[in-house]
């Protein structure tokens, strides 16, 4: 009893005092890098959209594939990881009573390593020495420096993961027998996944480096590709899990409601952590060298990830309805009007969640074998991840920024910026409807992804795709406007908005909630189960790929 009293007193003290300047500086720096890369990556995206629609010819010194590589790496890897780390370190600081000095130090070391890695990776891309896409499938061989950059980046991420683990372990030692605060629990899930999935890409990169340097002659193409997707797919889901944290915890507070069941939230996190990594195989459904029965087992492993997401969908709408009805909402659907649509902190993540309905459905469709064969490597896939990653995740991150940035900079969200944020959300949604919608449709017609503007020698089929690609350009332009507004808003909130205190919105659980079982805190066991699931997914195909490997491939640089 005494400890809980002391605890709540301390919590209140921190809440009153706000975040410590050092912790704020750390998170602010991460967020600044994140939104800078968003700006650059977004502008590169515009170039691509315009080129793909045949409206813009890129100069000879700037190759389409070079731009695409940079766009992918900046947005999928850098924007997201810097945002997530900045966000969750702010979470730790807020909910776990300030960062430990050594944890802060680790995060800074990680920051510097990542920046070094980023610079090392970007230089060869700028010199057109690494136009290999962010998937860098061997036997495409980039300049070795590109891979060194990736190594630094991954080690940087590991530093941040260790920092997070130390912070949480320390808190648990001081608060024996208690549940880790829910957002820090999310952070643990995210960093566990980041750490274990990046081991795969680290192995791949260490396979590639001696080969790219010319020390070994050939490489096992299939194995490298498989290792990549063990990482690549998980990465996307990590950003998704970060976004989900805001859906479960922050959004209910913003709309003035309570959190859905704490147990369910933690179970969803555990399921997403345990099931995620083998899901990567659905990127390889039409690959040679993997047996049909193995592919079939992987349909299950991929679809299983959908289950926690469907649980999330239920939970979210339950919270919305409950809160709206409490505020006097009636009817089957009329209660929707009681939600605070004019608050960007709600609107942005809400649109993100709505986008996840078609996004998730598309995901379930394309991870089943035969349906995948229709959509694989067409623009459908690009449309899909612009809905999930580009909308569900990015828009949630934007929504977070409207309270996280002022919270860190000890400023406030003014009604003007709120309004700007509403416009931003509208631009973004409209842009995505145009762009992702057109991509899905033209993808079904057969238009491939990852190709610059082409009519395939004036082929009639290819020419018939052009009108859809025009929508893509329109959408891309709207999105660029959205990005400019967003970056302006972040800069404003960080440096120019009026001083004041902003709340870190964390919703409470229902009063009648049943206590959460303690096993949810046993991360050691969860990790072991996760490793077993990874083993289930990977042992069969990987052993087959190594034992029955064809002679390897030498490096190629076809650009």
């Amino acid at each position, binding site marked *: 009893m005494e400890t809980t009293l002391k605890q709540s007193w301390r919590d209140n003290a921190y809440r009153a005092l706000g975040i410590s300047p050092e912790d704020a500086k750390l998170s602010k720096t991460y967020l600044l890098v994140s939104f800078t890369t968003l700006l650059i990556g977004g502008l590169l995206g515009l170039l691509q959209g315009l080129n793909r629609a045949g409206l813009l010819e890129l100069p000879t010194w700037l190759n389409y594939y070079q731009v695409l590589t940079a766009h992918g790496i900046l947005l999928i890897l850098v924007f997201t990881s810097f945002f997530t780390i900045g966000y969750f370190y702010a979470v730790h600081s807020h909910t776990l009573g300030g960062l430990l000095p050594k944890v802060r130090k680790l995060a800074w070391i990680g920051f510097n390593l990542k920046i070094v890695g980023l610079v090392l990776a970007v230089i060869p891309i700028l010199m057109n020495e690494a136009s290999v896409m962010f998937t860098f499938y061997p*036997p495409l061989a980039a300049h070795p420096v590109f891979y060194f950059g990736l190594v630094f980046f991954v080690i940087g991420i590991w530093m941040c993961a260790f920092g997070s683990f130390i912070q949480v372990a320390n808190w648990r030692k001081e608060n024996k027998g208690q549940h880790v605060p829910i957002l820090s629990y999310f952070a643990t899930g995210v960093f566990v996944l980041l750490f274990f999935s990046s081991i795969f890409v680290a192995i791949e990169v260490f396979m590639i480096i001696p080969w790219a340097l010319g020390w070994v002659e050939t490489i096992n193409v299939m194995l490298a*590709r498989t290792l990549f997707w063990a990482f690549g797919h998980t990465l996307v889901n990590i950003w998704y899990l970060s976004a989900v944290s805001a859906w479960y915890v922050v959004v209910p507070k913003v709309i003035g409601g309570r959190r859905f069941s704490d147990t369910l939230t933690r179970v969803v996190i555990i399921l997403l952590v345990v099931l995620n990594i083998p899901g990567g195989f659905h990127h390889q459904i039409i690959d040679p060298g993997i047996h049909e029965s193995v592919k079939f087992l992987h349909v299950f492993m991929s679809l299983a990830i959908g289950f926690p997401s*469907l649980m999330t969908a239920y939970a979210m709408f339950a919270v919305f309805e409950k809160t709206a009805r409490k505020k006097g909402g009636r009817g089957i659907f009329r209660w929707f009007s009681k939600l605070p649509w004019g608050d960007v902190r709600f609107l942005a993540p809400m649109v993100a969640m709505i986008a996840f309905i078609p996004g998730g459905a598309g995901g379930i469709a394309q991870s089943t*074998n*035969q349906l995948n064969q229709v959509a*694989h490597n067409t623009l459908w896939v690009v449309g899909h991840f612009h809905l999930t990653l580009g909308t569900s995740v990015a828009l949630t991150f934007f929504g977070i920024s409207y309270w996280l940035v002022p919270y860190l900079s000890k400023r406030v969200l003014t009604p003007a910026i709120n309004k700007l944020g509403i416009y931003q959300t509208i631009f973004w949604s409209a842009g995505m409807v145009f762009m992702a919608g057109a991509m899905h449709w033209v993808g079904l017609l057969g238009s*491939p992804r990852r190709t610059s503007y082409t009519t395939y020698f004036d082929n009639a089929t290819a020419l018939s795709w052009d009108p859809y690609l025009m929508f893509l350009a329109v959408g891309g332009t709207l999105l660029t406007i959205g990005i400019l507004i967003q970056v302006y808003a972040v800069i404003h909130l960080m440096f120019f908005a009026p001083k004041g205190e902003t709340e870190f919105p964390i919703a409470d659980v229902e009063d009648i909630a049943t206590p959460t079982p303690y096993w949810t805190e046993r991360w050691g066991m969860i990790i072991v189960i996760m490793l077993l699931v990874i083993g289930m997914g990977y042992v069969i195909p990987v052993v087959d790929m190594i034992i029955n490997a*064809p002679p390897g491939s030498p490096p190629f640089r076809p650009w």
Partner: protein
Amino acid sequence: MKFHLDEKIWLIASFGVIIGMMLFTGYQTFVLGMGPPSGMETIDPQKVDVTAPFDEPGVYEIGENEYEVVMTLQLFSFTPNNIEIPAGSTVHFTMTSKDVTHGIQVAGTNINAMVMPGHIQRITQKFDETGEYLVLCNEYCGTGHQFMATTITVK
């Protein structure tokens, strides 16, 4: 954990959708033989030109209305290209890559497969309708990727 009735229904329905997709996919794969292309044979990617059958790529008639297309994919072309076949024929594609990872996709059909160095990929398609089909590479393979295309003419 206590579940409400509607939550239970939702969870069972979710689970049902997933299992349903599974069963349907399995039925199509194992009963109807519509599984995704999964060629298991391997080849030395540096010796494609001297390894049968890829030493002589081309279109071969192997039965009544049945053709085998032995095809190599290489930086920015398909060999053989501009294939012609009569309507109503079943075509078995046997493919490999001579260099990097390519993808083959024929717009308007279900042909879509990764073709990777070291692996022999197979896919079968029946062409009933006449016309010119666009064949293109759908995995980024280099600067000329957007020019890697050919046609199948069904007469």
